[in-house]
């Protein structure tokens, strides 16, 4: 497919790899955090790590919305469906995420709750229109990429006067997660030399919001596309910045990201949402100004206000290392549950559920052995 195949070209990938190997100084480390699960997925699927010199390492970041959602929010969603008998609609990725007491949305559905998997917020609106006697709640989750479609749905619901539609909002903001990772980086946290910035998030917010990373923390950023050549070119751009002592926000993904981003979508978000004073992230804790809630003008469509629930404090799975993995300080193979019993078919933690989670990527592409310094599999490029 156009804009995909060209960016997976083998010959170009090998040449890029040779250039990176030639330019990376053997005497220094290049520890590059790929923020997004989409990058993690590409790095594993195409074996990009194996094309890199040994002193250039990718560190997996927290950019997987399913992975960073705290268990309490899944418990809350299940309580909405069971305590208020609403029709709960959500994206497929969330269905198998473990909740407290070994529950999940999928299990709650099997036990009779009305939980439906949807592809688009347009589907939720349709379900609400077709079932005027049911309360339909959209369990909204995602970074800036997935937020505007929720905003469109809220606006349409308001315009149509749909009274049986509401949103359980869990949208989170990328820059604040980066801020947390960087402010805890150092000897006790993760050690970082550069960041591969989000691509699809940035098509919406633009490249400007990352300036603080370079200015305040002295860490270079390259906004990187999700195809293997994009990731490799971005790694080379970071190597060059580091070699030349530059610290800038550069944009590799110029075919879809501009400095200012998508203004129409931004205006919509400003209208429909407000910033939450704080929100819990799995692994990162309660972060100030890190998530969105419905704006006052839309408060009547807020499922959290419309349907109060009672939930017990969340019970995390003992031994699951997702929190440390999401901060970049541990890798999946550090988890005793990895592979036995935790696999994508039987996920114990969120990082094993989404294909963008680090644990799922390690498992699915059989590269977990290579997390140490002993790459065994050859590149798939």
């Amino acid at each position, binding site marked *: 497919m156009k804009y995909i195949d060209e960016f997976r070209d083998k010959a170009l990938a090998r040449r*890029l790899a040779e250039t990176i190997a030639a330019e990376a100084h053997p005497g220094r480390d290049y520890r590059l955090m790929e923020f997004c699960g989409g990058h993690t997925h590409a790095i594993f699927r195409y074996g990009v790590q194996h094309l890199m010199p040994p002193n250039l390492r990718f560190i997996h970041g927290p950019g997987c919305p399913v992975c960073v959602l705290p268990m309490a929010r899944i418990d809350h969603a299940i309580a909405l469906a069971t305590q208020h008998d609403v029709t709960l609609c959500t994206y497929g990725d969330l269905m198998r995420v473990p909740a407290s007491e070994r529950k999940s949305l999928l299990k709650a559905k099997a036990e009779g709750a009305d939980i439906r998997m949807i592809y688009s917020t347009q589907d939720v609106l349709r379900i609400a229109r077709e079932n005027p006697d049911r309360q339909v709640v959209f369990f909204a989750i995602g970074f800036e990429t997935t937020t505007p479609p929720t905003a469109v749905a809220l606006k349409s619901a308001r315009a149509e006067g749909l009274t049986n539609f509401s949103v359980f909002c869990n949208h989170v903001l990328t820059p604040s997660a980066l801020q947390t990772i960087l402010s805890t980086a150092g000897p006790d946290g993760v050690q970082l030399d550069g960041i591969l910035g989000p691509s699809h998030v940035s098509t919406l917010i633009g490249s400007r919001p990352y300036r603080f990373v370079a200015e305040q923390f002295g860490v270079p950023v390259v906004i990187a596309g999700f195809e293997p050549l994009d990731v490799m070119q971005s790694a080379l751009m970071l190597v060059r910045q580091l070699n030349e002592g530059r610290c800038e926000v550069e944009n590799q993904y110029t075919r879809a990201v501009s400095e200012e981003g998508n203004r129409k979508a931004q205006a*919509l978000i400003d209208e429909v949402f407000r910033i939450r004073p704080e929100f819990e992230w799995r692994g990162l804790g309660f972060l100030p100004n890190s998530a969105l809630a419905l704006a006052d003008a839309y408060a009547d469509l807020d499922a959290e206000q419309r349907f109060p629930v009672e939930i017990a404090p969340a019970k995390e799975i003992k031994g699951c290392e997702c929190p440390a993995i999401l901060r970049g300080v541990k890798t999946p193979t550090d988890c005793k549950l990895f592979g036995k019993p935790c696999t994508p078919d039987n996920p114990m933690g969120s990082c094993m559920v989404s294909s963008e989670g680090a644990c799922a990527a390690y498992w699915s592409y059989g590269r977990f052995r290579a997390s140490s310094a002993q790459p065994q599999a050859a590149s798939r490029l």
Partner: protein
Amino acid sequence: MCLAIPARITSIDVAADTAKVALGSVGKEISLALIEDAAVGDYVLIHVGYALNKISEEEAQRTLEMIAEMGLLEEEQELDPEPTSTVAGSGGQR
């Protein structure tokens, strides 16, 4: 779940603010509520049923050219005093 995929607009329904796109050989209807001035033939990034942004053909070409050039540079660097032995696919440890 932040993945968006490129698709070509094959027709537009102005009244509904929707478009049909071709995703490989599959057709799909998507919302145009988030973008402006979409035209038939444009490539857009699709995410959960919405077009997020247009893709610039010009910029895509420029990126590919830059990647090709970055690779070419390497061939002129054979005098690199410290050639790194780990090259494409060797995957070995030194």
